[in-house]
């Protein structure tokens, strides 16, 4: 059986929007992996430095990457004319749902880790210490966001239904 790749029949004027969308998504995922590694390190080792780096990975990497990814998504969405279809494809719905849920979790994780990092810098002890509940919540949320983004990646590449 022969397969003709959609990329072959994709119009060229979609490429810039697609490139921006993919680049933003890759930066988000890379930043989330880095943040997860530092936050898990802060959780297990109680290092304030790891906590601060985890927070910065989210603030300076994941959130800007998300904005770029979302701009690219809206651009390619309009170029493909999906809004004009009688029914939105499942893969598009999955992408939007994951992006919205992911943003909410990402913001909660960033704010939580930022607050704990700031309090740790001020006091260095108490429930706000690295390894406390705030760091565990942030690490868990970032891990969940990573998993749902892999699901979104599957939906975007395989385009079910």
């Amino acid at each position: 059986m022969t397969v003709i790749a959609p990329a072959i029949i994709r119009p060229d004027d979609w490429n810039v929007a697609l490139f921006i969308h993919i680049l933003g998504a890759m930066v988000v995922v890379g930043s989330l992996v880095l943040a997860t590694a530092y936050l898990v390190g802060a959780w297990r080792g109680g290092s304030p430095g790891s906590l601060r780096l985890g927070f910065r990975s989210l603030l300076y990497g994941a959130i800007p990457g998300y904005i770029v990814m979302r701009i690219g998504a809206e651009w390619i969405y309009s170029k493909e004319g999906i809004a004009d279809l009688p029914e939105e494809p499942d893969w598009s719905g999955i992408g939007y749902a994951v992006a919205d849920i992911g943003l909410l979790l990402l913001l909660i994780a960033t704010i939580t880790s930022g607050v704990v990092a700031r309090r740790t810098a001020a006091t260095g002890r108490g429930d706000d210490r690295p390894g406390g509940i705030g760091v565990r919540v942030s690490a868990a949320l970032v891990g969940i966001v990573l998993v749902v983004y892999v699901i979104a990646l599957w939906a975007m590449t395989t385009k079910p239904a």
Partner: protein
Amino acid sequence: MYDLLLFLHVLAAFALVATVVMYTGFALGARWAGLPATLAEVMWAIGGAGTLIFGVWLALYVDGYEIWDGWIIAALVLWAASAETGRRSAVAIGAQPGGDGTVDERAMARWHALRALLVLALLLVMVFKPGA
């Protein structure tokens, strides 16, 4: 089969770029040690192998692509160049054997910047497929 190959190829590409993002963090002063360091090396290995294996598999499987297409050869050359600059970057920071044992953060940042540009060019070739 095509969907699975494409998903694995793109997933590997995400792992590759994740390493570039992580190394950018290290180059900007983030601490290189422990879990982040290990994860960066593992993801570079998985991403590198995955993009190459599933990419070549796709080129052979898909009707309309040939392994000797100009954009695919360009991608293979960029992949090899990014692999070598990534290796030099890792050697400079002591993550791989081959250096003199000292950590040279400036050399790491220099090789990493080159690797990041090459990976960006690779992504451009993959999306735009010039000549396809």
